[in-house]
């Protein structure tokens, strides 16, 4: 069902956990649907210095969570905002069709954490339309 890359991120997820006193928190998903992701970030000099995830969900949900943390870690906030759910799925070399919908929310969670950071710090957010695509 899942390819090797997905299975690798599922079995050996990167950046699991929760950052204490995070600069931003993103929580997406819905327990009814079976997938909930929480992303916590530490921001320094406009870059994502640290990122951790916690996910309740299926293989795809966990793998995309893990992958997105790898993709955005060290990136500027603007760069991170450009990473979409599609980018994540592509970085995982594809997800099964029935998984594209429900489990592929990881980029949304990162965007939300960045938004949360902007709101908390009162910093101006450059491109609102980058938040959710």
């Amino acid at each position: 069902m899942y390819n090797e890359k997905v299975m690798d991120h599922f079995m050996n997820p990167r950046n699991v956990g929760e950052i204490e006193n995070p600069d931003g928190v993103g929580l997406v998903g819905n327990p009814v649907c079976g997938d909930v992701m929480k992303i916590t970030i530490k921001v320094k000099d406009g870059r994502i210095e640290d990122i951790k995830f916690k996910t309740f969900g299926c293989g795809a949900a966990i793998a995309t969570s893990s992958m997105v943390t790898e993709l955005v870690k060290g990136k500027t906030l603007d760069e991170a905002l450009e990473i979409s759910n599609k980018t994540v799925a592509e970085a995982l070399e594809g997800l099964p069709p029935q998984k594209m919908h429900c489990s592929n929310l990881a980029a949304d969670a990162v965007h939300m954490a960045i938004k949360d950071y902007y709101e908390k710090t009162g910093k101006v957010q450059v491109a609102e339309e980058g938040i959710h695509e």
Partner: protein
Amino acid sequence: MNTHSNARRLVYLDHSATTPVRAEVLAAMLPYFADKFGNPSSIHSWGREARVAVDAAREQIASAIGANPQEIIFTSGGTEADNLAIRGVAQSLKDKGNHLITSQIEHHAVLNTFQDLAKQGFKVTYVPCDEYGMIDPDDVRKAITDETILISIMHGQNEVGTIQPVEEIGKIARERNIIFHSDAVQSLGKIPVNVDAMGVDLLTISSHKIYGPKGVGALYVRKGTKIKPQVTGGIHERRLRAGTENVPGIVGFGEACRLAQQEMPEESKRLRELRDRLINGILNTIPDTVLNGHPEKRLPHNANISVKYVEGEAILLNLDLFGIGASSGSACTSGSLEPSHVLLAMKIPHETAHGSLRMTLGRSNTKEDIDYVLEVLPPIVEKLRAMSVFGN
């Protein structure tokens, strides 16, 4: 296909999904592929030989459920038999009434067929179940109207294993002179299935759940019950189901029935002990786990446990890498966005439903298998919980 990279043994715990064809059954089938390959409708010796085999299997199956051979209609499986029973009665009795009764916890083969009939104008009552997945016969009784022409309530529930009070429902149906169908796909070979004791007019059974081949099932049709055929064509199966008979499949089904009936008392006892070891092992070692389904009135091979705070598919994938095959009622494995309709009907919260784990035991399973699961499962749950949003 990822292999069982972490597996120290292979433990198949999904016998309610399907079972391997057992050696005796395959041996019984083999002559009918290439040697005795005739079409039972042919009058020459090849045909007559095949006819004899089909009739012998019909007797084996009838005997396993206390029926007459003429009351057995072969189909391509449990799903088709459910469809034939439900559509067949609805269409043949639609002038008598347009109300149908079933339950919220039926298999999709039943549920979706009723939903299709509802779209065509039939009124369908879906009786609920209690927290154990048990249907109250009184709810069935209350649902009956003068328009009711069919009641369909399953015997052994396929997800949570709860055994339904079909005998009582059968009595109610009889009193009110309403056709009663029951899906016994999961109960056959596990607990006694007898058409008279159950008071059914129609009963669905399937071969591949009892170590017979896939692609064969049967509908028991009590003498005198009128159903409209759903597959029309040549003259087969008392004109109730057309199509060249799957002779090797039918022969295998017959043999599987015979063996299941013969071995049931001992094998069910053995499975029940293993299953209880499994259930108790999990409940005792993994916190925040709950048994789904009825604690006693339960199919002997079914363990269904919700592991809170984690999602079912994630557990299954981990178990798979350890060589353990199981199933879940999570949305991710149900093919829809909703978790199991059965767990929801039991009023189990969505999160808990998503974390359900069904393990169904079978002939090959041993105490060692169970102990292996009990060793492998706790660290998997621990690891998944450590990365879960919930529970800590």
